[in-house]
């Protein structure tokens, strides 16, 4: 970092803090919340995408919410253990869960009784669409070629980060929509850190992962993107068509959001929503978005609640069709 850039950043931070400090004094007249440290419980290990995205947001939110934010990692059971901790916590707004994509799936799969109904949504901040990637020497250089090969009876091995991962659900949805169910075989790995090398070495034919996870491998030419499963193209891979553009009506991605236990007072939810939204729109977090390649996608408390309810419905139908529901 050059010196002028550093001083500029410092000036911005100081300026922002002064502004925030000013707005806080007026706000604190109405309600003291938050006056204690806030705890965010993450259902995945430190260093993963949920952890990194949430920490980046929390770093900005310490300023915008005017309180200390403590991150606690409770990995295990596809995020279920952390969700269980938070839903049992006092609904006072001081304990926040990150809402993994799996929150819409675990109950349908008989893995837990946790659903979005145990929580009150605060906001969604990132929707990272799933992408489909192959090696440069792969015989399948387009989604069309991939589907044609599958229709010809070829088995296509797909690396995902786990048997019931959102990645697996997205590609199964693709297979079903394209009429090649059973021809795309799920090869589950322990997380992206194992799945990406498998795709690089050619052990599998196709990789499904968040586009932001392999941005560097795509840039270096080690992996070729075939499609992203979003509504519209994404900035980091602007040349890559969406599945919709290629005639497959499927979307899917990893959701990064926040929620508090159900029963949290409405004004506290709104307070959290507004201060975390301010963090989301801060320069600090904008820089993070630009550097990491994640796809910002804001939804406020009410919209995110409705979204989670719709996702719960959609996953239910999808898992039923795929034979993964219990």
């Amino acid at each position, binding site marked *: 970092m050059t010196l002028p850039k550093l001083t500029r950043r410092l000036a911005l931070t100081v300026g922002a803090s002064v502004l925030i400090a000013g707005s806080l004094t007026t706000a604190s007249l109405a309600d003291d919340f938050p006056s204690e440290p806030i705890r965010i419980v993450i259902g995945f290990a430190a260093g993963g995408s949920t952890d990194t995205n949430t920490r980046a947001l929390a770093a900005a939110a310490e300023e915008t919410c005017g309180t200390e934010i403590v991150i606690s990692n409770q990995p295990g*059971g596809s995020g279920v253990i952390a969700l269980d901790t938070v839903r049992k916590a006092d609904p006072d707004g001081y304990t926040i869960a990150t809402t993994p994509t799996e929150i819409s799936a675990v109950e349908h799969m008989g*893995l837990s009784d946790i659903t979005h109904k145990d929580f009150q949504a605060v906001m969604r901040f990132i929707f990272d669409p799933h992408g489909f990637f192959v090696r440069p020497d792969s015989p399948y250089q387009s989604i069309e070629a991939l589907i044609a090969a599958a229709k010809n009876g070829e088995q296509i091995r797909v690396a995902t980060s786990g048997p*019931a991962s959102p990645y697996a659900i997205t590609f199964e949805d693709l297979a079903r929509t394209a009429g090649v169910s059973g021809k795309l075989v799920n090869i589950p*790995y322990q997380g992206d850190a194992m799945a990406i*090398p*498998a795709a690089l070495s050619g052990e599998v034919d196709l990789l499904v992962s968040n586009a932001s996870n392999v*941005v560097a491998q795509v840039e270096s030419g080690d992996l070729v993107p075939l499609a992203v499963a979003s509504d519209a193209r994404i900035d980091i891979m602007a040349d890559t068509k969406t599945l919709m553009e290629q005639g497959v009506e499927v979307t899917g991605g990893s959701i990064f959001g926040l929620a508090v236990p159900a029963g949290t007072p409405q004004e506290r939810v709104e307070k959290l929503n507004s201060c975390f939204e301010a963090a989301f729109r801060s320069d600090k977090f904008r820089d*993070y978005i630009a550097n990491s390649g994640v796809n910002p996608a804001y939804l406020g408390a009410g919209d995110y609640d409705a979204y989670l309810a719709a996702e719960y419905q959609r996953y239910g139908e999808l898992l039923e069709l795929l034979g993964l529901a219990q």
Partner: protein
Amino acid sequence: MTGWIEGLLALQDWLVILMVPLGVLLGVAIGAIPGLSATVGMALFLPFTFSLDPLTGLVLLLGIYNGACYAGAIPAVLVRTPGTPSSAATTLDGYPMAQQGRAGEALTISLVASVAGGILGTLLLAFFAPLLADYALSFGTPEYFAIAMLALTIIASIGGGSIAKGFVSAAIGLLIAAIGFDPIAGFPRLSFGDAQLSGGIQLIPLLVGIFGLAEALTQIERMIASRHERRRIGTFSMGRNWLRRLAPTTAGASTIGFATGMLPGVGGDIGGYMAYNEAKRFSKTPETFGEGEPRGVAAAEAANNASNMGSLVPTFALGIPGNTQAAVLLGALLIAGIQPGPGLFNAAPDLVYGSFVAMTLAYFCLLVIGLAGIRLWIRVIQIPAAYLWPLVIVFCVIGSYAVRTNVFDVMVTLAAGVLGYLLTKGRYPVAPLLIAAIVGPIAEENYRRSMILHDGSFVWLLQPLTAGILLLAVASLVFAVLRHRKALAAANEPPRPN
């Protein structure tokens, strides 16, 4: 070469240089507390790095990473409680040495071996990372299975008195590892409908319980039965001819540690055990291993620090984390505005080479801090047993809670402590249990994935690299059994008159 110059220039900042000893000190403190692993420590200081320059933050985190890896050996030697999983193998000979009044020697050896392994690893990383990363990619699912099988054969030779008891212990370990989500089909096993159990048994609470808590229970029982004598510290010197005695083991162990560390998902805990096993196999006096053999300590500690460096190969060269700590490093880079990936060596040479130089400095720093500190923390064993062992229990409980701030993990530690105590009473070795719990899941998952990848055919077993490693595993097993028989025969034979 220009990369090195940029790296050196980047280190001209006093703040970066300050982070070297600071990181090492923090790491030593964190690693020495059972249960607090490098991952937890790095995550703890991660928010602090957000306000720092990328290199400054990285140097701090790397200091914690390497400092903690060494410091895990301190409680492993003194109270048979590995401070981090990587130091599990260090207990095998380190603790017997301490019991024989050679704690000072054991701690000095663990320090020097750690530093040697770390520096050797750093050199390998700095000069061969891009080359080695490509090589590591050639290790696919079948090779992972083979490596896991090779690691499992250690059980046969590490069990001490009885191979059969070693296998019983390992079977319990496999059973414990089976709890939780099935890695391939995704459904919970042995969970009895409990959300916590379906999340699986975490390694650190198991480790802390089976070693630390179990040893505390054993010692407290002994204390009640008889008066406990004060343990001696002994000399801090490594003895005569230490270089000639320990250097070959250290160099070999570093290589094994580094090579296994390069494989994502294979950590210093496995590397430490594998290096220990090889040191024993190549020794002329294998019977001294497990009875306080300095080379055992050197092998385990050199390997785990070299493994730490090996894990950074895919991290720096490919942007793929080699272990959970490396994942935290990558997260820190992302938040600091650096996109890790295959282009990192060219895109940010100051950062990459700067951190290599800083790591080398950190190891020299560690040597100084360690040599000064050993005299301080060795006093732990002079604490009267009536206070020491209850304190160990307290630390075990706190440490296991700290992993995920989860009470379930504390219950796992308590249960593992009782299990470990009973196993020790029955003269069942606990190391096989731990090895099986770490390696078993890797073997299972990769076996099943290989079968899916090859459509149910066993043809993958014949791939040259896989078959080669598996043959090595078979040879290792046969060798261990033969050696064991010979030892039994020798023990049963009446001593020959001279």
